[in-house]
């Protein structure tokens, strides 16, 4: 993608220090530290209600943390607004797909390009040449993204009318259209069948190889987590209880106890 390497890229893409988020009397995230390096797929796992999605929401600016900070590419982005965080290079998807239902698939992806364009009211009304050029660029990038996820046949279809699996891919394409450095995916495989999950895993692996990207993932499907992650962190009751490569996590007794349960087999 035409994003130049403008900033000095340290190996650490995202760091959180002592991140804490409290809802009423409930500490959803408690002193969460993590370091995500460039080019890796970092998975966050844990039982339901462990605070994974809350971490995501704090990182992407939907919630403001009570304590701690989020450092992205060397800059403190704690408490910034979601759209500012997207412009700085973090894009996300949602656990329950949130598309712009009554807009076409292409328009959904074009929305992602919004923060990389700057045409204002007057240049749009009078259709200045700079605005036309920009619109053409938005179109081209969006078309290439829709092809990348293989949804060009749904180009002019309303987002709500396409199959569930395609909606997931569309949401990822929309996030990619913001030209992110860090892609934050909240349970991308939920609701997908085995075949679709396989395609998704391949897609994510390819993405890491081809693009200048880092991926942060929440996932319940252990095959996905173990299959594609470079690093896994386990959360339980708002705290990080373990971190390591997939093998280490798989054999960690604390994780098995907290996440998989003492009796149940995964």
């Amino acid at each position, binding site marked *: 993608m035409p994003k130049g390497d403008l900033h000095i890229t340290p190996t650490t893409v995202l760091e959180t220090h002592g991140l804490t988020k409290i809802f009423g009397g409930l500490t959803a995230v408690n002193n969460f530290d993590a370091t995500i390096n460039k080019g890796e797929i970092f998975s966050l796992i844990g039982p339901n209600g462990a605070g994974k999605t809350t971490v995501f929401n704090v990182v*992407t*600016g*939907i919630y403001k943390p009570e304590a701690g900070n989020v450092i992205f590419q060397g800059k403190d982005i704690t408490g910034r*607004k*979601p*759209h500012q965080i*997207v*412009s700085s290079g973090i*894009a*996300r998807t*949602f656990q329950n797909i*949130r*598309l*712009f*239902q*009554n*807009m*076409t698939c*292409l*328009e959904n992806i*074009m*929305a*992602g*390009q*919004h*923060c*990389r*364009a700057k*045409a*204002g*009211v007057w240049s*749009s*009304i*009078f*259709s200045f040449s700079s*605005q*036309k050029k*920009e*619109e053409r660029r*938005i179109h081209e990038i969006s078309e290439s993204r829709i092809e990348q996820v293989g949804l060009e046949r749904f*180009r*002019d*279809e*309303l987002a709500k009318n396409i199959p569930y699996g395609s909606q997931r891919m569309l949401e990822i394409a*929309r*996030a990619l259209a*913001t030209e992110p450095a860090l892609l934050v995916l909240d349970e991308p495989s939920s609701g997908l069948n085995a075949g679709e999950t396989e395609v998704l895993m391949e897609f994510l692996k390819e993405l890491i190889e081809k693009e200048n990207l880092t991926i942060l993932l929440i996932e319940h499907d252990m095959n996905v987590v173990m299959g594609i992650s470079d690093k896994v962190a386990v959360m339980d009751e708002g705290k990080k209880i373990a971190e390591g490569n997939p093998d280490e996590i798989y054999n960690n007794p604390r994780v098995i106890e907290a996440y998989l349960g003492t009796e149940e087999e995964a």
Partner: protein
Amino acid sequence: MERVKKGFFGSQQGLLFVIVGLFVIYPFLVSNYYIDVVFFFGIYALLGLSLNIVLGEVGLFDLGHAGFYAIGAYTTAILNTKLGIPILLLLPVSAIAAGLFAYIVCSPIIHLRGDYLCIVTIGMGEIVRLALINNPFDLTGGPNGVYGIDFPSFGGPFVVDSSIEYYFLIWVIVVLSIIGLIRLQRSRIGRAWNCIREDEVAAGASGIDVRYYKLLAFVIGAALAGVAGNIYASKLMAVSPESFSFWESCMLFCIVLIGGMGSIPGILIGAAFISLFPEIFRPFAMYRMLIFGLVMILMMMFRPGGVWPRKRGGAEFVSLLSRKRKKDA
């Protein structure tokens, strides 16, 4: 498939020319009274288009739109009668005044959602009306309003002083507004508005500054209503608070709902319905509201999306007016 689309497209283009042609020759065929009827259709079309930006494009419930209309009308009325500034020079001034008012009033309430915003805008519209009645600084003339407003001119020999000229003045403004609005619809701004309407959280997470674009919609919508207020004030030569009641806001809301949210041809149909309906049913004036209510109920039951909902992705009536036609692949 492609050929079907093209044929459909062609016939729409033909239809558009016929409609424009009819609008041009219409005032030469009828009496002044009927010219004025269609003039007011133009005013309502402009008001409908202005509310459509807020309600149709962004999905913000604004039931106080008559307040912005009033600000525009009174700005023109006061500056014209007190300082003698020509009406057409006041056109941008009224737009800016209404836009600025919207910016100031809406800034603190813009984060409200749905019905909460609706209630606050009702309050805003009513406050404007009551303020006008109370004659602040002896400017608004209280319940009597301001009268003695000039014909539109730039101060030179060009003066709009007949029904037919008013008719062309308003419809030229409507057409220019439509062209501008279609371009906005097709730009990143229009898409951002629609994204916010569809899902605010996802819009924010896709990099859209939700607050900014909501405010922008209110400001542009109010400015356009201010333009309508300017023409309206000079047409009636007088303005009074009762023209800007809550009922007026309801009518504008109905225009957008009847026509179809976010659909420009729909708004024109809605405005035609609202402004021509009382004329057609003048003999049954007593039952007018009854029939009107019935039509609204039937509409909501059988065509909740409006008479002419906006179609996406395919051939569209409005796409004829925009230069950048969608590539039909």
